[in-house]
């Protein structure tokens, strides 16, 4: 026994296994199941028909009961694999169920009705993807609208954030003026104070500006992020002043210096801020929930929440729309993973 385990656990290089190795692999295995499992389950479930979703215990794959149209019956009848008394197996269609007996017909010869005890039959099932979960809500409900609203909010907020924050960061890193230290102090002080602390008065301000229940009311309060200004300023401090002086000698205007010299040089920091801004705005929930009251104005997150909070939750639609709302984020992650991880590791932003 001991020799066997030694053989199984032999590794290259002749190093023996330490208990921390076991622990590490165990941790990775648990992590894989716990982290991927739920999202995988969500995706698989989103392709199940409402009938399959209602089953308990749930099937692992999106199976659907096969049906057949039998002459003489209006509706398609569900197919079952039946074990007959003589032990042979036949595929029959069920007409109705009476107590513990089922009345069934052979789809090929629909005249004769066969009575079968219900425990002698199993439904014929095949994997089928209920794509109507995806197409129906897009047609019936306002999900496309929510999607558009979210895209609009995310794109506009990110563009304004980038321009306005980079201008401020440029001013704070490359100019001397009165009150600069005070402005920096205020920005640092509010660096981490979240929207949730000022939602109540913000509601009044947005109301006064006639922005209540508009997408701009969602966008504007979020764009002057102190975090963004701070991040960009720290980066712009590393751009040498000589470059700017040289441009001034060449009669470049300050605006030209800003967007032709400083902005391109700050591209890595701008990219990090852009990615984070997209993620923040796409995932925002509390503030849109407060500002938006008409359904047509809902963003995806508010719409999803409202839809899943309804009395009679239509899970087959909720699941598919949740998967759709993850897609843009998943794409960003696939393509920009290195920036995101490097950005977080270097700045501690989220």
């Amino acid at each position, binding site marked *: 026994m001991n020799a066997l385990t030694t053989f199984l656990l032999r590794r290259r290089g002749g190093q023996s296994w330490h208990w921390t190795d076991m622990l590490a692999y165990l941790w990775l295995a648990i992590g894989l199941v716990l982290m991927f499992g739920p999202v995988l389950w969500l995706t698989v*479930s989103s392709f199940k028909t409402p009938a399959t979703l209602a089953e308990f215990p749930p099937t692992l794959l999106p199976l659907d009961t096969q049906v057949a149209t039998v002459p003489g019956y209006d509706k398609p009848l569900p197919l079952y694999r039946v074990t007959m008394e003589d032990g042979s197996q036949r595929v029959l269609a069920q007409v109705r169920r009476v107590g513990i007996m089922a009345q069934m017909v052979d789809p090929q010869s629909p005249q004769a009705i066969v009575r079968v005890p219900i425990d002698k039959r199993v439904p014929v099932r095949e994997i089928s993807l209920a794509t109507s979960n995806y197409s129906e809500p897009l047609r019936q409900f306002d999900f496309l609208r929510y999607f558009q609203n979210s895209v609009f909010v995310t794109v506009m907020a990110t563009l304004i954030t980038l321009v306005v924050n980079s201008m401020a960061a440029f001013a704070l890193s490359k100019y001397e003026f009165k009150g600069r230290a005070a402005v920096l102090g205020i920005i640092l002080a509010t660096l981490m104070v979240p929207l949730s602390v000022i939602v109540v008065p913000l509601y009044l301000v947005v109301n006064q500006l006639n922005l209540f229940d508009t997408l701009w009311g969602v966008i504007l309060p979020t764009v*002057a992020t102190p975090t963004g200004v701070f991040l960009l300023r720290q980066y712009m401090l590393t751009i040498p002043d000589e470059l700017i002086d040289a441009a001034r000698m060449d009669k470049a205007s300050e605006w030209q210096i800003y967007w032709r010299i400083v902005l391109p040089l700050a591209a890595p920091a701008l990219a990090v801020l852009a990615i984070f801004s997209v993620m923040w705005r796409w995932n925002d929930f509390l503030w849109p929930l407060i500002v938006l009251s008409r359904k047509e104005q809902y963003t995806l997150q508010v719409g999803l929440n409202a839809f899943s909070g309804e009395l009679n939750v239509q899970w087959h639609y909720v699941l598919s729309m949740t998967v759709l709302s993850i897609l843009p984020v998943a794409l960003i992650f696939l393509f920009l993973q290195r920036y995101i991880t490097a950005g977080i590791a270097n700045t*501690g932003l989220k």
Partner: protein
Amino acid sequence: MALVTEERGQASSLSSLLALPFHWFMAALNAPMSFVQRRFGIGGMGVVFLAPNMLIFGVFVLIPVAINVAYSLTGGTAIFMDGRHFVGLDQYRSLLNCENYAIPSTCQEDAFWQSVHNTAFFVVVQVTVLVLAALGTALVLNREMRSRGFWRSVFFFPVLLSPVVVGLIWKWILQRDGLLNAILLDFGFERTLWLAERHWAMFWAIFVSVWAHLGFYTLILLAGLQAIPRDLYEAAMMDGTGRLRTFWRITLPLLWPNLLVVVILALIRAVQIFDEAFVLTGGGPGTSTMFITQYIYETGFAHVLRNLGLASAASILMGIVLVALTALQLAVSNRRAKKEGA
């Protein structure tokens, strides 16, 4: 900031693709900005560049902070100031009026104290579990292994999911006929209504928020681990130091500053917990998973009787805690920066 210098080329090609309309927009702004520059001179341009951000910041952050204080000192249900009457510190008094702070039901605002208790419990347990799990994951991911990038993504990707999505995914798994109950029944356990029993609801609120944020803190700690010089470990190996001892004597002391930052960041986030828990449990059953942010939201917005004064007072109390934590964080990272500079 050592921000991805080797990725500079890639970043500019990415931005040049997106930048064409941006380019025109900026070029069009050159004429008016040159006019402004002639007016204010080069030195005055600093204020000009700062103005748009400070304008938005002032209107949507600074003014609200001021109004927040004003709200918390006035009573009534009116949104506008002229409909509200001055009550002094009454809102704070009614929030803090308690016979016994340990028992929420003896307080005048029992819902507020219930949420404070829930939040305190949540913060202590969630931050502890989160930081330990993140440390463990970072240590595992820092080992020599194949496809480390893949494993890092496995733990990281939930960070990108929206809180609503996170809440919905787990609500789906934890419901009465959900996956978890199916698996447990298979193993002979009984069916549990996970989100309808108060202790389980709190357990899942904590579990789900750890699940969602683990990758973020792991990443910060992993960066800290990778900054520890390799030769220290080689020297320890030469001396035949055991792995546990190496961890206590080398890894932990050198990782300590990062760990401190992670703890404070996690604290700041945990105090404000709202979205995932709200979608998952809605604060229930009863008020057993209602946290402070939800109390503010419900008191100020969701109730028929909007009590903006009470909500503001509660948010200011929460703000004080957060500002203190933020100051602590800045102090810690400043000290770290100084140490690194020295």
